[in-house]
């Protein structure tokens, strides 16, 4: 069965979704990613969807779930590279992906993660 590769880049994980996923592949990704966040002690996750030609309510919900699950495991998630046509369609569909952070591309997503993690570090230090 096909799997979506998860790459480790320092403290971050990079998930590049390149296939027109069917629903079982998407479910497997949830298992794989949560396991990987724990084993790699990842602080952030970048999900690159620039190759996706559509995001329907199922994939939209999966992205939201992935972000929520990562948060529970103390990792920030940023979804990057959504195409304009996909974004317009998602809005029309009525999905706003509440709770999911987004960035234009992997580079911007990485900056956002760094900033978020630095802020959290400060907050954490302040409360000690």
């Amino acid at each position, binding site marked *: 069965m096909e799997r979506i590769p998860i790459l480790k880049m320092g403290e971050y994980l990079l998930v590049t979704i390149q296939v027109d996923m069917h629903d079982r592949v998407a479910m497997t990704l949830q298992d794989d990613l949560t396991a990987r966040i724990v084993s790699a002690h990842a602080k952030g996750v970048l999900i690159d969807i620039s190759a996706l030609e559509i995001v329907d309510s199922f994939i939209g919900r999966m992205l939201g779930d992935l972000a929520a699950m990562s948060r529970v495991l103390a990792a920030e998630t940023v979804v990057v590279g959504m195409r*304009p046509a996909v974004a*317009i369609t*998602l809005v029309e569909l009525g999905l*706003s992906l509440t709770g999911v952070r*987004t960035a*234009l591309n992997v580079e911007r997503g990485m900056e956002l993660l760094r900033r978020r993690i630095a802020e959290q570090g400060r907050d954490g230090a302040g409360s000690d």
Partner: protein
Amino acid sequence: MLTELFGQDDAAILQRWMDNQLAGSGFRPDRISRAELQENATQFLSAFRRALSSGSTDIHGADWAAVRHVLDVLSASRAERGFSPSETATFIFSLKQPLFDRIRGLHEKDGVKLADTTWEINQILDKLGLYTAEVFQRSRDAIIARQQQEVLELSTPVVALWDGILALPLIGTLDSARTQIVMETLLQRIVDSGAAIAIIDITGVPTVDTLTAQHLLKTVAAARLMGADCIISGIRPQIAQTIVHLGVELGSVVTKATLADAFRVALQRTGLAVQKQLPHERKPPAERDRTSGGSEA
């Protein structure tokens, strides 16, 4: 038989037809030359003759393809040049008189034949005239559609204000078709430029109704999904009142009264600031460009 019409002194028919066209109101010396008209007429007559000799009177059939082709080219070119539909159809209708005269000459002694042939040729020419008008109309529609598209594209200039900050100054009424293009153009430019902030300035939009407001909010929502923030600026007092009266929920969308205010917010968000320099901090031009030996040095 209709084939008898041609074959003898065809030049006379062409000449009569040309005279009719040149004398009639359909002739536009400002838009078409006499030579071009003569060429059109000659081409048509030769195709028309061949079509008649096939025996078929179905102008939509294969035997009439060459005739239709001549008319397609003619009508499209006249639509481009701003002829009216009746001026274009006159090309065909002005051929009636020379042909009817010819029929009278051929069947002077046989009243029944005279009437039948006249009726037959009349019907064919009417159909061809209508065909010309239809092609003309289609060509005009295509021209209008193309121009609309061009205007729409012209009217959505996305400009870069600063590194990472785009602005879209909107002017005129926003309908659904235009908003669609505005939305797509802006989002594509965001991807291409990697800009994190886009300012949509509606100073030039006369009125905002519920639909327009919804379109704007959808654009902001789509940009946010892609990872860019939008600020809506240029909200005039009247429009602010309308938005509240209509009960439009702006949610968390940032709105500013002027483009300058929005630009200031955008600079702040990207970690930039505009600072006024004191006179002694300014470097004289000569210091930057010593070779020119400026007088201020």
